[in-house]
């Protein structure tokens, strides 16, 4: 049976409900009462209108929201809820470029049919009809880079693991989203869980992996539950397990939960925690692609990275290259928060201007009213809002010095905010999260804090000393946390001194 027939046979089993109401329930909306709205709608809507849930579409600033096609306004009279079709939401979402978050919020996250109707799993079907090498070539042609923060070319990582001769090869999906200010992977898992599964299956097929582990952040309970449910559905419908989509491709996805700590998102630490070892990074080389999980070649890809794969297969690498930057094609999901009027999740082309992004999607009327912008969490730093005018989002140090986009957290700081306090807060975070393995990070991050003082009046005097200590920490630490732990101080030195 070919995969298209397989898809048709599954879709035809299910009749589409004419009138469907979707309550957008995500971690963000749960905290502002989405569940109550879901329950009261279930109670008051007539039986011919089905009530289901989706994830948040990214316009968190007006959450809770519901999505419906038929007019049910009179049932909602005393419920305070926003329709996802309202112009304020549409303007926000329609001006984005959506690949990973396509149909987020307007598609059920509880069942697979909404996803199947929007061409879900047809990319996997198409991939399974080609050879793994062809898929790797296609992804190489697309120029896709990892979206976890390091922007390493996906095909290079894949080929490196493929070059190792081994019976076993593992794919680990890194959903240990732990960078303060970033909440995009949660949104992806909560709104398009099946896209992540499809992406992971494509990656595993292309790289001839024998197992897939999905490693979810310990605090992302909703993401975990939703992924677990999606995996069960996929198993029941023949998209996971043996003979996937009627082909000979057979693989399982095992889901597990982390137990807290920023450093767990670092790939070799993540492998240690899966193996039941202490939460600390490993020496490299050997890199995980050569010797990772149980000393077997292991590919670790971020949630957002994998969710790009179905789109690339369906639309081709040339189409993908038309979006974003010439060196880094595609989109990036930005988690926008802080002193903006409209915080939320925004998917924009790579290379977008940082200041424009904050003004447009944050609805900031006067950019000079901001004292600065914190970018990329504690591994990066702060810049002035005027400096953001010359920066675009992309890999590495976007200003060539000390500020990285990382996983894409952008926090606007109001005029009242003391930027030095923000730098202290970020440095304090690095000091608390240091696992203690490397001396420069363990001792250095504490010393940085001491040198910075505590009270608002205790402003540091020895900025040269602080700067050189920050550089030593960055140069002499083993993992990504330590190598970036000095960045908040360095960025403050660059932009605010």
């Amino acid at each position: 049976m070919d995969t298209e027939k397989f898809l048709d046979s599954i879709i035809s089993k299910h009749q589409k409900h004419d009138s469907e109401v979707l309550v957008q329930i995500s971690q963000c909306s749960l905290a502002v009462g989405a569940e109550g709205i879901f329950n009261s709608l279930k109670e008051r809507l007539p039986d011919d209108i089905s009530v289901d849930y989706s994830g948040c579409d990214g316009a968190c600033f007006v959450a809770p929201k519901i999505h419906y096609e038929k007019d049910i306004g009179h049932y909602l009279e005393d419920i305070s809820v926003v329709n996802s079709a309202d112009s304020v939401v549409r303007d926000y979402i329609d001006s984005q470029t959506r690949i990973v978050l396509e149909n987020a919020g307007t598609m059920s996250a509880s069942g697979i049919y909404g996803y199947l109707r929007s061409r879900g799993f047809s990319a996997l079907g198409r991939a399974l009809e080609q050879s793994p090498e062809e898929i790797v070539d296609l992804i190489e042609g697309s120029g896709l880079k990892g979206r976890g923060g390091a922007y390493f070319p996906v095909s290079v990582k894949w080929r490196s693991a493929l070059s190792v001769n081994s019976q076993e090869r593992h794919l680990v999906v890194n959903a240990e989203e732990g960078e303060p200010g970033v909440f995009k992977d949660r949104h992806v898992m909560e709104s398009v869980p099946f896209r992540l599964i499809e992406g992971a299956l494509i990656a595993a097929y292309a790289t001839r992996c024998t197992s897939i582990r999905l490693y979810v952040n310990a605090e992302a309970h909703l993401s975990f539950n939703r992924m677990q449910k999606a995996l069960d559905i996929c198993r029941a419908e023949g998209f996971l397990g043996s003979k996937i989509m009627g082909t000979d491709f057979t693989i399982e996805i095992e889901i597990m939960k982390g137990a807290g700590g920023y450093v767990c998102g670092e790939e070799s630490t993540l492998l240690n925690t899966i193996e039941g070892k202490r939460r600390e990074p490993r020496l490299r080389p050997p890199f995980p692609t050569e010797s990772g999980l149980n000393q077997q070649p292991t590919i670790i890809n971020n949630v957002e990275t994998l969710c790009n794969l179905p789109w690339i297969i369906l639309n081709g690498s040339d189409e993908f290259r038309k979006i974003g930057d010439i060196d880094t094609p595609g989109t990036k999901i930005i988690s926008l928060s802080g002193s903006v009027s409209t915080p939320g999740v925004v998917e924009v082309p790579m290379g977008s201007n940082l200041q424009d992004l904050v003004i447009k999607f944050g609805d900031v009327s006067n950019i000079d009213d901001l004292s600065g912008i914190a970018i990329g969490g504690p591994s990066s730093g702060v810049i002035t809002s005027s400096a953001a005018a010359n920066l675009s989002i992309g890999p590495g140090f976007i200003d060539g010095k000390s500020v990285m986009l990382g996983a894409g957290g952008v926090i606007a700081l109001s005029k009242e905010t003391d930027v030095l306090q923000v730098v202290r807060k970020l440095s304090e975070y690095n000091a608390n999260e240091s696992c203690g393995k490397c001396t420069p990070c363990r001792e250095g991050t504490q010393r940085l804090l001491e040198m910075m003082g505590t009270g608002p009046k205790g402003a540091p005097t020895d900025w040269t000393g602080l700067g050189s200590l920050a550089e030593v920490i960055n140069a002499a630490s083993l993992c990504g946390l330590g190598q970036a732990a000095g960045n908040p101080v360095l960025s403050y030195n660059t932009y605010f001194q």
Partner: protein
Amino acid sequence: MASVGEERKRRNELRRELIGKFPRDRSSLLPALHYLQETFSFLPDWGIEVLGWHLGVPSSEVYGAATTYTELSLSIPSHKTVIVCDGVACREKGAIQILEFLKEKNIDGVEIKTTDCAFMCSVAPAVSVGHTWYGRQVPDNSLAELIEG
């Protein structure tokens, strides 16, 4: 204190449960620690020992791994805990004022903690009461009632 007989009984019970749920492999360590924490709301030392027996991992190493994770707790949670996120984004929206307000209110039997990020920056500021997070909080009596309730 449990008598020696009771102590042995509860250890055996836990051991049987662990045998049923987790393969005897070191990679079961983290899932099993989660299970202990869910069952007892913390990791009792005798539970760590039993888990070590089952997995064939010295309990010192189980302890060593367990203490590196921030989500796992080795002591009994004594108070009702309220967590205020005081990350950069929540501070922008008034987390410090919430902390000051709660300090001043000094609600009986409630322990106030902070976290560096609750990942709810888009509905900041966020406060957790009894494992449920609430977004867009303001320092007023409705928050106090939420905590007291």
